[in-house]
């Protein structure tokens, strides 16, 4: 236990950095993912094609490959980052956006047909139908899966620790190396801080799910 109390400032720094990475990448991914989902159902064939290819490729790319590309391959190709956080945020948000796009698209498909028909019959164009009628309803139904994607994002941010970003996992690795005799305690401390984010989010997801299920 002493190891954890001694290193509490490090844990706290790592926790804040993990939270920062998750929140920033989460917001970027939500925006990007919704745009991708909109492109996927749009009348313009090129947008549909681009969105489909993007989602297919990114969803099937291991996250470590995305990180490897952003943090090791890009700099050697001449794209230099001031901080490795930026590489981490690029990898995390590009990866997560593909999953969010799929979730939002399934939400769009779950909205009753009559909604879109009614909107079109009163003269709305595609942009209006999507932004005023379909997406507000679709986003509501996909809130639980979106929260699950965000939980995965928090856990995925741990990969950043292996690519030169000092967040919870990165500090954990450092502390484990520094305190070779108490590795288990140190890493259980790291686990505790992850659970501090993921378990409340999980409870939130199941609560929302129950609420939505009753409302329907």
């Amino acid at each position, binding site marked *: 236990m002493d190891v954890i109390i001694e290193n509490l400032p490090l844990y706290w720094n790592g926790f804040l950095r993990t939270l920062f990475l998750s929140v920033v990448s989460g917001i970027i991914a939500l925006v990007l993912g919704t745009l991708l989902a909109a492109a996927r*159902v749009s*009348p313009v064939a090129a947008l549909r094609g681009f969105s489909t290819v993007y989602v*297919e490729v990114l969803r*099937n790319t291991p996250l470590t490959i995305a990180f490897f590309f952003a943090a090791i391959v890009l700099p050697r190709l001449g794209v230099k980052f001031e901080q490795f956080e930026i590489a981490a945020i690029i990898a995390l948000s590009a990866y997560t956006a593909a999953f969010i796009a799929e979730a939002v698209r399934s939400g769009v498909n779950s909205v009753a047909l009559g909604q879109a028909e009614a909107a079109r019959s009163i003269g709305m164009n595609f942009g209006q139908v999507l932004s005023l009628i379909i997406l507000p309803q679709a986003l509501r139904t996909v809130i639980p899966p979106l929260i699950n994607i965000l939980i995965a994002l928090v856990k995925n941010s741990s990969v950043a620790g292996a690519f030169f970003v000092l967040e919870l996992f990165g500090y954990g690795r450092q502390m484990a190396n520094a305190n070779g005799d108490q590795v288990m305690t140190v890493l259980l401390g790291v686990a505790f801080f992850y659970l501090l984010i993921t*378990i409340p989010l999980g409870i939130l997801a199941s609560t929302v799910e129950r609420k939505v299920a009753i409302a329907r």
Partner: protein
Amino acid sequence: MTSVLYDVPGPKARRISLIGSVIGTVVIVGLLAWIAMTLAQQGIFEGRRWAIFTRGDVWMLLGNGLGATLSAAAVAAVIAFPLGLMLCLLRISLVAWIRIPTRVVLEFLRGMPVVLMMLFVLLGFGTSQFVAVVTGLVLYNLAIFAEILRAGIQSLPKGQREAGLTIGLTSFQSRMFIELPQAIRRMMPSLVAQLVVLLKDTSLGYIVAYGELLRAVQVMADFLGNAFLFPIFFVAAAIYIAINICVSRIAVWIERRGSKKAAGGVAPAMIRTGLEGAGNDPVAKNIVPGPDKK
């Protein structure tokens, strides 16, 4: 559904859409061309950089990496599935002191980053990298498998279990012979989709220095020089993505086949839409005779 969102395009809209498509394509092609130009300036497309792929040992190293990736994934999947099955049964046990601790354990495993579990096993127990990677993958995926199967069992109509108990099966027998087989079949697409996740997660082995595909790339790049990093990385990423897309396709195929078979039966999605229709559709309400109209 998608075509419901917009009118069938007339000549004008078709023209606009065509122009939009052309502009979009030009922008994307332009972007790719710009990337290609940037890469070309770095000398990426020089023949000598790609000539390494004519060497057998490069392919052998890549093959070793791929073999390590696939074997870790296969071993982990084979161990994780039966364990997940067992924990699923414990999780829905009728006895509270079995059910609740199992739930706590599953929540704990689901809330942890996989790479942290790998590191924990590696440093905490001083195992080999292979064991660490497999154990990390097993611990995480058994929790997910258990949750998927639980969702499958709970989506079954109550009558299945009741019928099993009525004909004299014990609770355990009903679970094993009546409910689980149906749950596994119903959840097949999710289970295969989870296999893709498992396969992807083997790449986390890179972080604990397990000699999988990505690690092989790194080793070769360090050995042959930075000039070869991009070509090797490119090929390795392509291999990874191609395998994952194949497995994903299998999941989609199983899903389609399953939904076709269940068309006459009780696919979960159909139950839901059926209820929604009865509640909201005035015509359906009229068909169902109310008690007062008799």
